[in-house]
């Protein structure tokens, strides 16, 4: 595997020509719900990574004393702060629920069994269980966001 194959690929600067690169995962529109789920999983993953960095910065403000911490907390008490937190709730719920579905698929569970393909071909791996899993993750995320909004905006 680590072979002449890799050497050949990288000895020629044109190997990446016509490769889609980031465009491949930024465009979820052409291949059905599984591709949309892949796109959302990545977007929510990147968003949560950025959130966690921000969260570390936020909590580290404790080092600068009580006033600094309260000033940082006030940022989350604004309308935009609430909207951001609702987004965090939605993305983390979707990412977790869909991630659990993917953990099962990565061990070969819930995919169906190989068999004789018969026209018109319908891939068993993209079955109703997978599609249901994606919808459940979306519905859970939407429900969590609505619940979060009802709590956060209740006092206003």
């Amino acid at each position: 595997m680590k072979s002449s194959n890799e050497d050949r690929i990288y000895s020629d600067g044109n190997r990446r020509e016509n490769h889609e690169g980031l465009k491949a995962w930024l465009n979820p529109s052409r291949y059905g719900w599984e591709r949309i789920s892949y796109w959302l999983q990545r977007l929510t993953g990147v968003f949560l990574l950025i959130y966690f960095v921000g969260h570390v910065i936020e909590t580290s403000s404790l080092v600068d004393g009580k006033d600094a911490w309260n000033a940082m907390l006030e940022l989350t008490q604004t309308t935009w702060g609430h909207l951001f937190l609702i987004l965090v709730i939605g993305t983390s719920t979707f990412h977790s629920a869909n991630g659990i579905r993917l953990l099962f698929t990565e061990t070969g569970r819930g995919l169906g069994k190989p068999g004789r393909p018969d026209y018109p071909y319908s891939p068993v791996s993209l079955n109703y269980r997978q599609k249901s899993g994606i919808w459940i993750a979306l519905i859970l995320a939407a429900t969590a966001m609505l619940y979060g909004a009802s709590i956060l905006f209740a006092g206003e």
Partner: protein
Amino acid sequence: MTALLSIKTRRTKLGHDEKKESTLEDSRKVVHLRVYRKNPKQDKSSHFDKFEVPVQRWTTVLDALLHAKEYLDKSIAIRYSCRMASCGSCGMKINGIPRLACYTKISEIDGNIITCEPLPNFPVIRDLVGDFSDFFDHHGAMEPFIHNQNVDIIDKNRLTEFIQTPEDVENYLQFSYCIKCGLCYSACPSVGSDTRFPGPQALAQAYRYVADNRDDATQSRLNIVDNKHGIWRCHFAGSCSVVCPKGVDPALGIQLLRGHLVNFSKNDKKLAESRTRDLGKT
């Protein structure tokens, strides 16, 4: 009964397609073919040429391209051979989706503008013809042949039968229908950003041999795919299975292969091997 039902279902689906097609005029109509043109040896830039091609309801995209090549512009470069979805030569991006040109009827496509581009993730040799070198290298790296230490394949006098039950065959049969057309490779988002990733075709072929109980090189194949540019780069977007024209379902093969890697799926093969051993004794 099940067979009868499946035949009935298929007939219903075919009937539906025929009904859809019959809404098209039987007389000839004209479609606008937009063909990607690029000749890297002469010019690095690319453009689209437009052709008006007469079609009938059974005309495929390949037929339309060959009409354009024969009567309008002989310099269009296309790779094709069997015209019946068996050779896998005429893969291209048709209206944004990787498909076989010989397997795609114009009547199946909405609108009368057909845009033909080379498959993404394959360097362009010329026009619609891509370079499959990497793709075949990845395929070859999976050692796509039976390894069996107990069978002498050199000495013909010592040839041994491989015994398999129909159930054993069904474990890998669908993956052996791969025609290496490259559609799955071009639809895969991981291939798009990592040229060292073997891609769905090669990984599904690795599973095809892992699932075959005549093969005894499971561990070495798992070692081949288990690296940082290997099977873990698959994120189950499922696009490979959506575009596969032969029902191979590479995404299924890849996930099952991962099951073997994390020790979830070994029992299937062990059961098959013990069944075969029992058959050999009787």
